């Protein structure tokens, strides 16, 4: 009984792990959206130049 170990409290690591997951995914989604908008703007400019 005296030597029984309690479950270690590693909540900080768990929170850090999930924060990193959601953080990286959100950054990647934003990068996709930004690149998409930049490319669409480039197409508009290039099509204008072509005419």
């Amino acid at each position, binding site marked *: 009984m005296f030597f029984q170990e309690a*479950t*270690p*409290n*590693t*909540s900080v*690591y*768990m929170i*850090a*792990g*999930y924060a*990193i*997951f959601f953080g*990286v*995914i959100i950054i*990647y989604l934003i990068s*996709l959206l930004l*690149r*998409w908008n930049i*490319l*669409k703007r*480039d*197409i508009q400019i*290039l*099509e204008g*130049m*072509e005419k």
Partner: protein
Amino acid sequence: MQPQPLALKVLNIASAVLLAIATGMVFFYAQLAESGPAQRIFYFHVANAWVGMLGFLAAAVASVAYLRTHDIKWDVVELAAIEISLVFFFIAIMLGSIWAKAEWNTWWRWEDNRLVTAAIMEMIYFAYMLLRQGIEDSDRRARFSAVYALVGSLSVPITFMSIRWANALFHPLVISTVSDAIKTPFLATSEMKLTFFFCLFTFSVIFINLIWHRIRLGNLEQKVEQLKLKVMQ
């Protein structure tokens, strides 16, 4: 450019809903393991590594298709698969490192074959992205990239098997028939098993969703490249 097809819109919603359910299952459905709350990282860690490796293999298939057909659409698929897998595998390495700190009291173990081979694999594909940046001509770029992706894909089975071949001392084997592998309490209950496989399924759906978006972006990049050539002429 075409607006998003209905199937992609449905997939967007399905991915978000599945991710929410998977997160809920990890925190509220699966029991807390004896090793503490950090064990909950494991569900997303394995799922990220799974789709990362899946994507690298998908890229190898696309590279073979490109080398056979010289159709640029396969180059777009290959790049999409590698870019997304790089992101997922980076997350897997980060989550693994955080779990290691909680469990082993160290961020990294150089004597762990899986950690080392995983890091090398990530660097191989990071170098792929750099290689692409350095080649101007689109045909040459696609050809070199396809060969590189194909050779690089050898790192996937090596990484997967590294702890099986070398009889892992530290890295937990989640699914194994090896009797002397480290026994982990990760899948001790049916709720834990269900959560684990649900996470694998969820991340597979998210991967398909993201690769679809990335292919559409790649097609747009191709269009810009063609328009630039036209304007310059």
